């Protein structure tokens, strides 16, 4: 690790002004310190926000306001989340380990970096780590990589499980800027696709502090999170689906579908959802949804398996939530 100054934030204003002057925010540290040890990241200063009062989950506007420092463990165990937003508890419990979830925070989880092997390996070219150096994944190992939303500069996936569930729940990110102003950004607009600037991953600006994530009122219908990975526990998703389905008899009345492991950000496709809403819950409908979702899939050799895997995982999830077995 490179030497750095350590500053403990007294209040959110202190945190944003230190961050505005170039300090890197540290929360649970489970991603940042990992990357600092490998010198993938080399901050000159850390601003530790752990003593800030951002650890509450409160009821707000019929939904929940989750403080940025609420740990993944506390969020998964919160009874309101377990009963009203079960997809979120399930996604959190499917991620990392008991020890990590006790440290990992809500904001830190949203902002965790990709697990692309070459991003971690400073001897390799990587446009995300060092813009303009190239992308080793293009000709390399791509098991973890995206089949949708990538560019010829970067095909890294966003590794979070939590963010996928939050995307399905239409969460909103609350951000305090260095000038003291607070703004709200829907999670759907929060992440940026790689394009020609894979090092810019989201809309945050220098000095910004995430203060909370807001969940709208609990949606109707059934929810579930299904994660497929290389081993049954303690592994990142190859494909995951966070789904919410409201049925009216045999017809799908409303639906939200978000995907992990296949794209640079938690992935939602309005056209795919529209192919489900108002339609009978049949094999034909489910296949049509998968066709639309995967229409633009652009896999490499190693991750071509994700195209059929995403289809099967989606259909299994729809079967489960629609109370059907139409596969």
């Amino acid at each position, binding site marked *: 690790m490179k030497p750095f100054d*350590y500053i403990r934030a007294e209040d959110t204003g202190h945190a944003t002004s230190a961050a505005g002057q170039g300090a890197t925010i540290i929360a649970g540290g489970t991603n940042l*310190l990992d990357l600092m040890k490998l010198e993938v990241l080399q901050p000159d200063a850390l601003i530790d926000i752990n003593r800030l009062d951002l650890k509450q989950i409160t009821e707000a506007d019929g939904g929940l306001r989750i403080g940025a420092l609420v740990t993944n*463990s506390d969020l*998964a165990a919160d009874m309101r989340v377990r009963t009203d937003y079960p997809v979120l508890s399930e996604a959190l419990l499917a991620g990392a380990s*008991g020890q*990590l979830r006790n440290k990992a925070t809500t904001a830190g989880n949203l902002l965790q970096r990709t697990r692309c092997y070459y991003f971690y390996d400073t001897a390799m070219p990587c446009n995300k780590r060092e813009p303009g150096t190239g992308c080793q994944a293009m000709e390399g190992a791509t098991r973890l990589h995206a089949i949708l939303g990538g560019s010829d500069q970067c095909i890294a996936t966003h590794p979070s499980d939590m963010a996928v569930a939050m995307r399905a729940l239409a969460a909103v990110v609350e951000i305090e800027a260095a000038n003291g102003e607070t703004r709200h950004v829907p999670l759907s607009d929060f992440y940026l696709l790689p394009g020609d600037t894979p090092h810019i991953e989201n809309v945050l600006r220098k000095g910004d502090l995430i203060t909370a994530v807001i969940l709208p009122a609990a949606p109707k219908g059934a929810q579930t999170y299904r994660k497929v990975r290389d081993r049954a*526990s303690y592994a990142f998703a190859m494909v995951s689906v966070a789904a919410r389905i409201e049925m009216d008899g045999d017809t799908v009345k409303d639906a939200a579908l978000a995907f992990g492991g296949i794209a640079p950000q938690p992935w939602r496709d309005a056209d795919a959802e529209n192919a489900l809403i108002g339609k009978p819950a049949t094999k034909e409908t489910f296949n049509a949804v998968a066709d639309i979702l995967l229409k633009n899939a652009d896999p490499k050799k190693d991750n071509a398996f994700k195209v059929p895997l995403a289809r099967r995982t989606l259909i299994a999830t729809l079967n489960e939530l629609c109370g059907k077995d139409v596969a």
Partner: protein
Amino acid sequence: MKTSLKINGEVHDLDADSRTTLLDALRNHLDLTGTKKGCDHGQCGACTVIVNGRRINSCLSLACMHDGDEITTIEGLGQPGNLSDLQAAFVKHDGYQCGYCTPGQICSATAMLQEVKDGWPSHVSDSLTGTYDLTEAEISERMSGNLCRCAAYPNIVDAIRDAAGKVQS
């Protein structure tokens, strides 16, 4: 960086480089070498300690971030002649081979049993609400952050079930 840590009930004043992880502070500065370093990247669980009642990976945390925190390490759970239930159960069930992962396993299991008492569900639980029996599947899932390179898993699971008072003979 001056940091005050309350470890196993005793206050320790540390003056170390800001880069010092909690794990390195314990092992290299405070001579508490029961806590082990495996991967140093949050993947193996050998460095698990209990901070303010919660199990964490001490390798992915800076010592200076823990000023004032209460930390329990394997040394604080019990000592020869006065073993904790889990420590005794690991001896009884031979829950190890080389023993390198054992302090982390025991610290992790100690806090894990409290999580179950507190009614926390796991990824393999049938329901997100209710109470949870420590089946083999539940123990494996809840302990998946602790790897054992010797694969002593069957005996580790037995030891934990025994200590949890749920072993059916």
